[in-house]
């Protein structure tokens, strides 16, 4: 809903801006370009169309390949039914629809200011154990780790899972060079900007004294002196990526 409204507003603003100087109606959506991009926001595909000579809109998707990163974690538990170490596997989980508007201060220049939205999954990173840390299956759901004062329980298959989540609607603001729809058949653009991720946080399923499963949002403040430094470092990093830098290169072609 918000995206639709924003799109309408952007279109309106764009038209109004152009209308101040000439009558460019004939320039609106008179071309269509297709783009492929690679950058910190992942791999992207989009369609682009000019909205007068001073603006263009781009819409498409971008995603991160699900390349897993594994890390062995020392388990602070001497119980013989618990493994000494567990391998945690983290996978990026970024898939966003994007709608961006480029504004060109100059009618023929390539420099542009871009604003828009990325809308997608709020969980941008998922992690689970790929090796069992409970050796006795009868203990699944009965024992686990403690982070801060929260018990991280296993499910009935012996797995724990955690997610890092940000806002599912991520505004974008940036600058770049190159036309969204090239004047020739092929063009290259580059963009540099930031996505505003809200305040990301780590989440995991916990269990309370009553046996209720609660999806808890963890912060550094939850931790105590007994927690592993690696957990504190991870939460620190997640907490600090309120603004995600975007740098990408986009190969674009004009369809018509």
């Amino acid at each position, binding site marked *: 809903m*918000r995206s639709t409204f*924003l799109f309408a*507003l*952007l279109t309106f*603003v764009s038209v*109004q*801006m152009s209308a*101040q100087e000439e009558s460019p109606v004939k320039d609106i959506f008179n071309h269509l370009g297709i783009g492929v991009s690679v950058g910190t926001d992942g791999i992207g595909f989009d369609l682009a169309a000019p909205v007068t000579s*001073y603006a263009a809109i781009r819409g498409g998707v971008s995603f991160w390949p699900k390349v897993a990163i594994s890390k062995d974690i020392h*388990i*602070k*538990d*001497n*119980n*013989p039914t*618990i493994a000494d170490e567990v391998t945690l596997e983290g996978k990026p989980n970024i898939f966003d629809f994007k709608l961006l*508007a480029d*504004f060109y*201060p100059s009618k023929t220049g390539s420099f542009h*200011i871009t*604003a*828009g*939205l990325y809308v997608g999954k*709020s969980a941008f990173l998922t992690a689970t154990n790929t090796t069992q840390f409970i050796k006795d299956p009868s*203990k699944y759901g*009965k*024992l*686990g*780790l*403690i*982070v801060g004062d929260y*018990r991280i329980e296993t499910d009935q298959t012996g797995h724990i899972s955690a997610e890092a*989540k*940000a*806002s599912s*609607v991520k*505004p*974008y*603001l940036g600058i770049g060079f190159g036309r969204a729809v090239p004047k020739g058949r092929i063009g290259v653009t580059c963009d540099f900007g930031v996505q*505003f991720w*809200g*305040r*990301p*946080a780590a*989440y995991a399923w916990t269990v*309370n*004294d*009553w*046996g*209720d499963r*609660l*999806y*808890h*949002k963890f912060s550094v403040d939850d931790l*105590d002196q*007994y*927690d592993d430094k690696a957990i504190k470092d991870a939460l620190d990093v997640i907490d600090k990526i309120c603004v995600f830098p975007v740098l990408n290169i986009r190969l674009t072609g004009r369809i018509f």
Partner: protein
Amino acid sequence: MKKNIVYLAIAAMFFMSFVACSTDDGDVEKTDYPVNLNPPAAAASAFYCELPVTMAPTTVSSLRLKSFEITESSKIVVELRDGVTNKPTYVMGDVTQSGNTYRVSGDKVNGTISLESDSKGARVTRASVTWFAIDLTVMIGEVVRYMTENGNPVEGAVTNTSDIEDEVMTRLARTWSILSAIVDLKGNDIKAYEEFDSRGGIFYLSDVLNEAVQQGVNISEKDKAALNKQIRSVTMTKTQKLYLTYVDGKEDVAAWSWANADKTSIKIDLLDQDMGNIFLNDDTRLYISFRDNRCNLRLETTITDDSGKRWEGSLTFKLKSAE
């Protein structure tokens, strides 16, 4: 051109308004659950009789009757003191009531207690119980008096605990069975928990002991012996006593008092020193919460083991009302 920049700025500000201040806050843990813990059927008949000045002599060598209590859950707890060392001994049994007569039965206590009321309230007129099959007759004397060894008449104080109107106490004062217990342990490169279920309605304290030993807590043989028990039930009373009843018929008893004005935690005073071990000390608090017909008692404590290592631990008993 200037207008373009203004429009652009407006658009940018509009975009910024979409920046969420935070993502979702996750589940918020409830603290106020519905509670279904009506007073036990026998709660109205509960009373406590204390012999405060000089303990009543019994026919058991050196033992004196200090008090006895009919609990809200139809149990009797007899408190005996050694006349020389003053060391307490507690004996628990079941009670069935017929009019003003309470029939007492159990592995180690049998007999009857008669109660009558007058203008001064309920008074015990006669108590006759046996302990370890030895006649423990206590003649409280005419009406409410019993004779001390010096021949002085003394009144026994009787408290009808049903007169104590307190919502939290009403919920708490009953006999509970243990569903399970959760051990949390932090310190010395350990940070883990494990939940142990009761087996056949019996909770094995040895499970807790084994968990602590596995995690590296150095426990003395004396404490190991104290923890190598099986709990049949936990009884709380309005007289602010906590009784642990073991499978072997023995009891451990603690007096408790509120630790805070909200009545969500209690501190305990061990009346039977055999109950004490490294998990219990003066700072020990028991946190109470209720839900449906259940109660959680979370014992939070700091443990210093025999090797001097310190741990932060908690033991949460998940209790269910026995009636």
